[in-house]
């Protein structure tokens, strides 16, 4: 296993002037005490651009992304977002912070029995009292935004369809639109294309790229497909064994790097 320090050849050169949007310091997670899944992750994310996190299955990519919005509680370390250490927040403060962190999932995680519109509006739940949410009394502004976003992702005709009547690609578009409803300042995507066909995968990646560029927020994507990562990401972080072993521009990844990330070499031929 390589220590993290030896394998950081090229930095993505984040805009020197802008303060990073997100800083991870010594982020560690142990599901079982003494068996860390994340071993002290230190990363900074610029306010713009797509960062792809690649690495073998079980190496802690999903855990890393879930530690950022604390769907998984980190064992130690800091997650500095918007001037606050998210790890130190109490439940109510954490909910407030989560409102501005969008998340997209591998299996879309839409509420299947609700309509597309309800799924989109659920992105605003952090701003609404549970009672109003239950009665579906959303501000008109949110409703307008939801219709606009549906148009952006090309699903205007499906506003009132039930989420489980959509195809995989359509569901992921709804998932992205739901995250966009939050007016995110950070978008986390956990294997957003792993359940999709190659063409749809490219479309979904392109959609996230467009939205990120349009609204100006950083995106962190866990991804298995190295080619997609190369094509869409501005920066690639390679992880193995709970550590960062590569951090640089997509062009800088060589076969040597892939070997050190995924291990072995037969699969590269």
């Amino acid at each position, binding site marked *: 296993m390589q220590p993290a320090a030896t394998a950081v050849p090229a930095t993505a050169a984040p805009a020197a002037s802008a303060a990073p949007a997100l800083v991870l310091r010594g982020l560690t997670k142990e599901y079982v005490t003494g068996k860390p899944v994340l071993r002290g992750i230190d990363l900074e994310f610029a306010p713009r651009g797509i960062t792809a996190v690649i690495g073998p299955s079980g190496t802690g990519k999903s855990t890393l992304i879930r530690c950022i919005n604390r769907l998984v509680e980190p064992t130690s370390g800091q997650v500095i977002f918007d001037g606050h250490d998210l790890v130190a927040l109490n439940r109510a403060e954490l909910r407030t912070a989560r409102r501005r962190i969008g998340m997209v999932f591998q299996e879309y995680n839409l509420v*299947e*029995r609700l309509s597309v519109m309800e799924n989109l509006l659920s992105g605003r*739940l*952090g701003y609404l009292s549970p009672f109003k*949410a239950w009665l579906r009394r959303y501000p008109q502004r949110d409703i307008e935004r939801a219709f606009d976003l549906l148009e952006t992702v090309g699903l205007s005709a499906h506003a009132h369809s039930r989420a489980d009547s959509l195809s995989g690609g359509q569901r992921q578009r709804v998932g992205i639109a739901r995250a966009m409803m939050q007016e995110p300042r950070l978008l986390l995507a956990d294997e957003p294309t792993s359940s999709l066909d190659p063409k749809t995968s490219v479309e979904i990646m392109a959609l996230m790229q467009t939205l990120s560029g349009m609204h100006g927020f950083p995106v962190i994507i866990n991804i298995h497909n190295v080619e997609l990562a190369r094509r869409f990401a501005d920066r690639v972080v390679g992880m193995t064994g709970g550590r960062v072993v590569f951090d640089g521009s997509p062009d800088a990844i060589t076969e040597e790097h892939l070997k050190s990330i995924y291990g072995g070499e037969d699969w590269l031929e």
Partner: protein
Amino acid sequence: MAARTGSNRVAFPPSWTARAAWLVFGIYFVYAASHLELTPARFFSGLEHGGKFVARLFPPDFHRWELLAKGMIESLQIAVLASALGVLIAAPLALCAARNLMPAWATWPARAVMVVCRSFHPVIVAILFVKAVGFGALAGILALTVASVGFLGKLMTEAIEEISLKQVEAVRATGAPFMSVVSYAVVPQVFSRFVGFVSYETDANLRNSTMVGIVGAGGIGGTLFSAFQRFDYDFVCAIVLTIIVLIMIGEILTLRIKKVFGV
């Protein structure tokens, strides 16, 4: 070929524990039957008495229909009110008891309440409430509410524990407060099953509400019991037929309700 014939691999190895358990069960069945003097002779003489009783049931006597109607309406009210109260108490209790959403300090007390509610037959609970609040429908309503809480609570808890947590995770990630997570990610997943449970429980309460009257907790049961004691078997028959019709109507209504909710 040779390998196949020579092979003695067993796909389904015999379970000697299971066989022993079946044997023990068979022996116990024979023992229990002999202990209770369950003889064919007794069974056939019983059939004869039964035949005479059935003959005296007919024709049913609907002359006292006012008494009958009053009892049936009361039973119906008991069943509906008990079911409604049962749902109102059971649903939040089930949420507290669901292990996938709540910590242990919440689930154990909630589960304990349900177990206690389920421990006794509604008639036993009805006897307790008759002693506590006196004869009449109130005792019946309370008794059946207790039964509903126990039963609905258990079914609802299990339904909540079977939901997909992915949907919960997604709603939680938006920064939604807990009650909104419940109403957006939990309720949609369990609602159709809840409608099914409630209609089933209402059906059960309808049947049980005709029975708690026997111990004085209101409803048609009291009328039925006194008709038995006076050997008014034709009136008994009228009551029994009416109960059957009521249950059937309940069944039809249930189907309609399920259709309305798109279950």
